[in-house]
């Protein structure tokens, strides 16, 4: 009797939709897991015997070095900028996030273009100084090059999370250490790194997940990793079955990393308490010290943002005439419209699931958020494999139905834009979800409960009260998802319908075809949109 009462009371639109949405997120992953255990074919045996070790090795080398380097760059910048005052500090506070506006694959071909034989550095050396350099020293298309690129464009993840933590949570400890007369370096190593451990690990694991997700940089630089291997077995060898096996293996690695993250963070979850926090007061640096600090920040900012952007603008000026054609507007339209549709769906799903989770007690309410953010840890190529296997299976089921309708194509869904949007939603649902969940956390459940006590149902309460109070968070989640989707490469490359290009795929295609100048304009457009979003976030939403 009681279970029936519970069922009847919790069974409403929010619950039903939440269950459906969560199942949608789970399906492609389950699809991979199921087929992961299918009978292996010969190709897979070959891959496992001769190539898998190489993929694992390269992937781990990348993850390790990019992880370590972003850790030191990200935390040292966070520390310098939170604890000291020096020229342009206020700008660097948000400027240091800007490298994130440049997708690493764009950075990769830009730096290659700067450094190669026909690039600005070598040409200047030849023409001005008559120096011809050994090509070996200027070749960036190798493992160290890929590490450099991924580090310099991904460190802001560590920087932002650590800095937010330091500015709000470390005040008492750092001020004590200062009073006791510890030197800056000592405070950095003995106080800052240990206390911000949880925040740093959170930042670094985001970086690592991005490294595992990357396809553009490694394939452009010719490094064999899991993602490139998935592309090759699937498109090069036409062997989807082995691509599934590779994806499954990569999922295991991701899972391992998430477990390690849990253990490394320990029980200390990093969280921002909402009670009044005392902000860390920066100490004014004097003399040469302030120029060291400025120099370090400026150096990182230059290689992470100024240099590649200037190079891209220069290329753009050489090619803009070819570009402002019908094609270009078509590209923008494609990118913007899919990103818009997917982000809208993401926001709706995120709102439904997070509202369900916060208003209910019990198992489902606890596990749904965890499943919802699953997609963000899973590399794009893997999601693509999952979605494709799922949808071709679905198409096969619907085969008879298509015939009955008199439709000619036999693979209807699995060749449509619908599949691409679906995959975007799964991959970036977490981005919208986190933003909206934190909005809900801030307002708590009191307003909703007050509204219900005044006779409004959950749904009416949501539209009349909750939604109005978390507008900022909903908007923020939409923008973040939108930007991520605009930049997205591996998913889009795999799942786009024939002849459908976005700014990202076109830029990448040009770069691969050695038409680097032509790649500049779509790239700049992506960077501009992301850059504006970062600016707006830092100056408007953060203050809210």
């Amino acid at each position, binding site marked *: 009797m009681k279970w029936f009462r519970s069922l009847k*009371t919790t069974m409403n639109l929010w619950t039903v939709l939440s269950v459906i949405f969560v199942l949608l997120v789970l399906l492609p992953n389950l699809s991979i897991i199921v087929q992961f255990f299918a009978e292996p074919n010969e190709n897979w045996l070959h891959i496992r015997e001769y190539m898998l070790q190489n993929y694992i090795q390269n992937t781990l080398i990348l993850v390790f070095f990019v992880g370590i380097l972003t850790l030191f760059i990200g935390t040292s910048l966070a520390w310098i900028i939170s604890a000291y005052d020096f020229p342009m500090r206020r700008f660097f506070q948000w400027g240091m996030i800007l490298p994130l506006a440049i997708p690493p694959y764009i950075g990769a071909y830009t730096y290659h273009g700067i450094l190669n034989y026909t690039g600005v550095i070598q040409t200047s050396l030849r023409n001005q100084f008559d120096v011809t350099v050994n090509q070996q020293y200027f070749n960036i298309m190798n493992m160290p090059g890929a590490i450099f690129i991924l580090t310099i464009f991904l460190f802001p993840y560590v920087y932002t999370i650590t800095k937010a933590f330091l500015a709000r949570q470390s005040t008492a400890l750092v001020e004590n250490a200062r009073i006791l007369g510890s030197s800056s370096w000592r405070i950095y190593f003995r106080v800052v790194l240990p206390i911000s451990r949880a925040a740093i690990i959170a930042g670094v694991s985001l970086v690592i997940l991005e490294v595992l997700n990357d396809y553009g940089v490694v394939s452009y630089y010719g490094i064999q990793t899991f993602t490139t291997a998935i592309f090759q077995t699937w498109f090069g060898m036409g062997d989807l079955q082995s691509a599934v096996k590779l994806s499954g293996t990569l999922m295991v690695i991701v899972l391992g990393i998430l477990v390690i993250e849990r253990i490394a963070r320990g029980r200390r979850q990093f969280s921002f308490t909402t009670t009044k926090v005392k902000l860390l007061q920066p100490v004014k640096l004097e003399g040469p010290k302030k120029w060291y600090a400025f120099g370090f920040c400026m150096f990182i900012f230059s290689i992470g943002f100024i240099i590649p952007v200037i190079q891209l603008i220069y290329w753009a000026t050489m090619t803009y005439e070819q570009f402002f054609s019908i094609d270009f507007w078509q590209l923008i339209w494609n990118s913007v419209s899919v990103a818009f549709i997917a982000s809208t769906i993401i926001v709706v799903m995120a709102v439904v699931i997070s509202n369900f989770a916060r208003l209910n007690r019990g198992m489902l309410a606890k596990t749904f958020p965890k499943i919802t953010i699953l997609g963000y840890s899973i590399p794009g190529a893997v999601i693509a494999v999952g979605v494709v296997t799922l949808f071709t299976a679905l198409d096969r089921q619907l085969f008879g139905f298509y015939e009955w309708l008199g439709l000619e194509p036999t693979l209807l869904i699995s060749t449509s834009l619908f599949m691409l949007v679906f995959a975007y939603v799964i991959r970036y649902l977490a981005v919208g979800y986190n933003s909206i969940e934190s909005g809900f956390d801030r307002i708590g459940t009191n307003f909703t409960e007050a509204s219900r006590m005044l006779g409004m149902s959950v749904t009416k309460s949501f539209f009349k*009260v909750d939604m*109005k109070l978390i507008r900022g968070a909903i908007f923020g989640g939409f923008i973040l998802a939108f930007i991520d989707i605009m930049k997205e490469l591996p998913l889009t490359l795999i799942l786009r319908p024939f002849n459908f290009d976005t700014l990202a795929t076109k830029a990448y295609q040009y770069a691969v075809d050695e038409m680097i100048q032509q790649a500049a304009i779509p790239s700049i457009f992506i960077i501009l949109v992301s850059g504006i979003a970062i600016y707006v976030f830092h100056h408007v939403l953060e203050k809210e």
Partner: protein
Amino acid sequence: MFVHIRNLAFKYPNAKDNTINDFNLTIDQGEIISILGESGSGKSTILRLIAGLDMPTNGNIMVGDHCMCSNSTFTQPEKRGVGMVFQDYALFPHMTVEDNIKFGLQKWSRKDKKNRVGEVLELVNLEDYRKRYPFELSGGQQQRVALARALAPKPKLLLFDEPFSNLDADLQIRIREELRRIIKSTGVTSIFVTHDQDDSQALADRIVVLREGEVAQIGTAQEILGTDCNFADRMPVKPRVLSRV
């Protein structure tokens, strides 16, 4: 008896033991009941159960002739006709005082709404504050708006969670008297929760002493707290268990 609560029990999913255990209480129409207990004794939880914001693991709640909750039925909070004044008032920050009060009157005609808003604002002495937003009001004024908002839809039962905890001490004493006057003038049956014996004494017709989720004592202020003993003696420990319903 107007309100009947029988064998009420509740456990938070992540808690080890029952937070509320075998709670029983009956209330007459128009009576003011105070639930008195230390912090963490389960006072807010009981209000939430009566309000329907949480579902008891066991027990029945009847208000008037309606069964709000039994082992086979559960009425959603918005259908109960029960009002609540929250500890932090929970006034909607994006609405004016007037709109906050109108919020519970969605089914009323426009004219009735307007009259009712005037009535309750007069009752709490805030006629001039209609157009203000909550953040433009003092703590005491916010509380009175919260009361007006809860009274507006004419609830059968009104619940208060620690109504004075956010007020200064001298304001607390003044508002206590006024609150009793207002409640009695509307005749609404009320339950208010507090950890302060003086509040209970000043406001309530009867006091329920709650300890670790169980009823320790029920009685009038005189019976439970005595009249003129000192503070230490007034702490309701074991003596005189008057009625265990």
